[in-house]
């Protein structure tokens, strides 16, 4: 894989120049909806098999999530999805027919060419390679049911706070969006915090508590 050309802003972050200033455009963009205004639906309807596999590593044994008769007895039209799992079915596909290759580098730890999870969307500010979620708030209207498809509507930047932490230099970002059904009705409202950063050199790996960075 060819190393992409790095914007000047990232160089500033890595070399210790005025790395905070590299985030000025992002700070100025607080309040902007970075979505294209359309609802981005997840690629799949919710199927029994994928729901079963979702429950498996959690050892989540609630019959509302696998027994339609029980779900109906408790007032639902069919088996329901765990509330917090709705996000999973809203994640875009990693690859679809017609897309360019995802895996174009044989190195052991090479990353896919694209990922809907990482901080790779179009936004102002420096390019970062480190990324993790820091916090989340969810308001649930109702659980999703088998056969439904969920989409994500809106991606509004609510805050941007540049900060140097134990893992690197970057910014805390807060985003707001809605999860909607096929009719556009809201099933959940979500506020997500992330930390996008340029990692410190490997020899300065963070201690176990390093995620406590805010």
């Amino acid at each position, binding site marked *: 894989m060819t190393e992409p050309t790095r914007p000047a802003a990232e160089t500033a972050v890595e070399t210790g120049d005025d790395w905070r200033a590299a985030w000025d455009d992002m700070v100025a963009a607080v309040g902007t909806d970075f979505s294209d205004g359309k609802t981005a639906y997840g690629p799949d309807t919710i199927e029994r098999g*994928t729901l079963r*596999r*979702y429950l*498996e*590593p*959690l*050892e*989540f044994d*609630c*019959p*509302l999530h696998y*027994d339609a*008769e*029980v779900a109906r*007895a*408790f007032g639902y039209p069919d088996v329901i999805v*765990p*509330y*917090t*799992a709705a*996000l*999973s079915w809203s*994640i875009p596909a*990693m690859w679809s027919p017609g897309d360019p290759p995802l895996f174009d580098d044989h190195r*052991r*730890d090479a*990353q*896919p060419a694209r*990922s809907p*999870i*990482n901080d790779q969307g179009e936004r102002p500010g420096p390019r970062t*390679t*480190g*990324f*993790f*979620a*820091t*916090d*989340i*708030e*969810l*308001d*649930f209207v109702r*659980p999703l049911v088998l056969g439904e498809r969920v989409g994500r509507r809106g991606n509004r930047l609510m805050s941007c706070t540049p900060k140097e932490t*134990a*893992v*690197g230099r970057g910014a805390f970002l807060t985003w707001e969006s809605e999860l909607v059904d096929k009719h556009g009705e809201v099933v959940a409202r979500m506020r997500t*915090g992330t930390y996008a*950063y340029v*990692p410190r050199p*490997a020899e300065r*790996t*963070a*201690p*176990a*508590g*390093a*995620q*406590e960075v*805010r």
Partner: protein
Amino acid sequence: MNTTVDVLRAAQRYFEDVEVGESIPSVAFPITVYRLVMEAGANRDFNSIHHNSDYARSTGAPDMYANTLFLLGMWERALREWIGCAGTIRALRGFRMRRFNTVGDTTRVVGKVVATRRDGSTGVVVLEVHSENSTGITVGPGQVEVTLPLRSA
């Protein structure tokens, strides 16, 4: 007669049964490489920080660690086991990931009731919930608002 439904209804917790200050049973989640790989495949957060030690360390983390959907699922399972099939979850706040829930440790979900109120014919219960491992509190404490049926309804 549906025996499963009858058993679930008999075991259902009601709003009137709840006291402020009471704890919910904690649930333990040993975090192994095997489980993290299963979880990534199940919830589709394939970020390498969640299943590749070398990669996770290159981003500043001490090792691979549980992803957000996994951690959210831990809370929901612990809550669902307490609210039963007639309960619902309305809101989750303060789900703040303070420390990495790293591989080779056990993450445990802990919760207690901090407030109760009636909302029409529904009982509303607010719980303070957190996750912890050998390093201390890793997620939260946050507040989760759930509903329980009323015996009197």
